């Protein structure tokens, strides 16, 4: 029972952490090498990895999506999609997809004369599922080794932890004051009931034993 509880806990908090990792912004330093637009089929469950912008009807099963291609300082390829999030989840309220596409095209550079930019994005890249992180902002970087401190994530996660802790402490206090005493009551009566049963069974066994010639 203890294992089940722990497995359940680990699964729950693992899923929550993964969800945060997907949703919170991350920043990469890349040089942009190109942009392209490709028609995407959105008819299966991988739909969750694409945005649901306002302007597109929910019933649409394919549409054109813009992509931004980049390389980081270790020459690892990064491909971002460029989609509005609109008013829906995740709450980035991104409406400037066309502007971002223009900025990306402006920042295209070659390997010999690289122009490094910081791309803010959320989401995951997965080659098997054809999932792409969504680029949210492009800012010039000082160089490939620029140090980016994720202030937003630091503040957000600290606040989130504080809120969870505050609720947890209050819930525990409430449980100790209101629920535990009731459960203890139930526990006492359960113990009393099982003692009673045990005693009766003992008497029954003693009676059976009289057939074997034992005295009561």
């Amino acid at each position, binding site marked *: 029972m203890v294992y089940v509880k722990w497995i359940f806990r680990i699964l729950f908090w693992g899923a929550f952490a993964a969800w945060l990792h997907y949703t919170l912004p991350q920043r990469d330093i890349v040089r942009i090498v190109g942009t392209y637009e490709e028609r995407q089929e959105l008819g299966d469950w991988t739909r969750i990895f694409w945005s649901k912008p306002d302007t597109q009807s929910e019933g649409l099963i394919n549409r054109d999506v813009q992509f931004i291609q980049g390389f980081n300082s270790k020459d690892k390829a990064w491909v971002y999609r460029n989609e509005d999030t609109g008013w829906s989840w995740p709450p980035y309220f991104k409406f*400037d997809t066309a502007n971002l596409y223009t900025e990306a095209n402006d920042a295209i550079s070659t390997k010999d004369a690289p122009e490094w930019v910081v791309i803010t994005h959320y989401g995951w890249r997965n080659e098997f599922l054809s999932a792409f992180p969504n680029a949210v902002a492009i800012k010039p970087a000082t160089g490939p080794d620029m140090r980016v401190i994720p202030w937003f994530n630091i503040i957000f996660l600290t606040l989130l932890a504080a809120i969870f802790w505050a609720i947890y402490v209050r819930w525990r206090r409430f449980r100790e004051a209101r629920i535990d005493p009731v459960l203890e009551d139930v526990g006492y009566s359960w113990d009393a009931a099982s003692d009673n049963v045990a005693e009766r069974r003992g008497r029954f066994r003693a009676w059976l034993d009289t057939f074997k010639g034992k005295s009561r």
Partner: protein
Amino acid sequence: MGLVRLVVIGFIVLTVIYFCLSLYSRAVRRAKLKAQWDDEGMTGDQDAFVTHGLEEYDNSLRRKLILGVYIVPVCFVAILIYVINFM
């Protein structure tokens, strides 16, 4: 349509949070008033003292600060829209 959905769902969620916070804050205030009564060894009608204290609390600024539950997220969203799209 998306904006309408966000506003409706946001309003419902924030209202739930608002009511939970209000009830919790009132309960805390009540417990504090009772503790004050016991600590200072007051005599007389405790219920009247607590009721009076809660009435004072209902008119206080502290009570109205809970309205920030509605105001803070709206400001936050407005700032976010500006930062993401226009900065």
